């Protein structure tokens, strides 16, 4: 087929396309996946009984802000990577900022702690289950995010997969905080970050395969 004929064929009967549909799909798809994660944490892991007592603690809000900021940053990176020709711009800095803030808080916390108490601070009571639980709670958003990207046109597949994975990890961490009793910055900076890193790496690994177009 000659290129001129192909062009005629492509234009013939070309339907209008809905540019805003993508935004709607992000909203409903990721929203529904987050609800599934909330149901998982509520009915499977259980919201911790003293959850409401924590609302007075500044560290609780720092933790929630940390997770929420990473959700927003990851989402912005993913949405930008989903369309051809859009630069990441400040998205990486937005992802780095909350992590750096948490690590700085963790270092200050460690410095203010007696050497013998530092390891318990790092391990908390739940270090061994924390990253695993975050990964499980990230799954619904992970699947939906990859599905959404497949309907878009990412040109940097590894990065787009990583952004989808990271976003799902951040949502998983945010949702997991309903169950998790830990409040130490040292703990959050290591184990929460690890929980988010795992889906990020998985996303980067499968991105080139699943997101090709």
């Amino acid at each position, binding site marked *: *087929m000659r290129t001129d004929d192909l062009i005629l*064929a492509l*234009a*013939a*009967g*070309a339907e209008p*396309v809905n540019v805003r549909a*993508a935004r709607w799909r992000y909203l409903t798809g990721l929203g529904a996946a987050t609800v599934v994660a909330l149901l998982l944490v509520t009915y499977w892991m259980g919201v911790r009984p003293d959850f409401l007592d924590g609302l007075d603690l500044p560290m609780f809000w720092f933790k929630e802000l940390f997770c929420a900021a990473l959700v927003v940053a990851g989402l912005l990176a993913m949405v930008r990577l989903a369309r*051809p*020709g859009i630069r990441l711009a400040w998205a990486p800095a937005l992802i780095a900022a909350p992590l750096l803030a948490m690590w700085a808080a963790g270092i200050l916390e460690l410095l203010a702690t007696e050497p013998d108490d530092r390891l318990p601070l790092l391990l908390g009571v739940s270090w061994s289950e924390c990253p695993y639980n975050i990964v499980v709670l990230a799954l619904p958003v992970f699947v939906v995010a990859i599905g959404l990207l497949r309907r878009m046109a990412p040109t940097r597949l590894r990065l787009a997969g990583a952004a989808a994975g990271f976003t799902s990890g951040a949502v998983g961490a945010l949702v997991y905080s309903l169950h998790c009793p830990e409040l130490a910055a040292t703990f959050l900076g290591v184990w929460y970050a690890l929980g988010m890193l795992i889906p990020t790496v998985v996303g980067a690994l499968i991105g080139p395969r699943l997101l090709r177009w």
Partner: protein
Amino acid sequence: MSATEDRLRDLMVRGQDGDEAAYLQFLRESSPLLRGFLRKRLVRLPDEVEDLVQETLIAVHNQRHTYDAGQPLTAWLHAIVRYKLVDMFRRRARTDAYNEPLDDSIDLLSGSDDAAAEARRDVGKLLATLPDRQRLPIVHVKLEGLTVVETAQRTGMSESAVKIGIHRGMKALAAAIRKSGTGP
């Protein structure tokens, strides 16, 4: 340069709204830009150029919902053609790995002018491999110029099935092009 940007952007936005003539004009004015871009980068693979122009046009068509009127159109177009170029190199690298002994001689042949004039991949033939529910709507609407309603009557499909057939068929065609491979 910015006159081209403004003009193409305007045509594309109208095309997204369903203005077929504007969209046709958009494709007509984009293809020389794509061809020029690819020709410069494929000096040693001249017979890949037209295949890749066609593949990129189909990609532009299938992904036109991802263009946001707030971004520069040329940046969008450039990202797509670059992606298709890199994708083609990746495919070739994979094929070349299996065909190493033949590589040199074929390199020599494809350098000649006759080889460059040959059309290597026929999109029409790939179209013929699609299932009827995708192929017939594309043939009637896109090649014969029938309306969706006429196509529905002729094929006995519902109108929405015709539209879905076109949509999925175009995606399947892009996938078939990817699989048909390039290289020796």
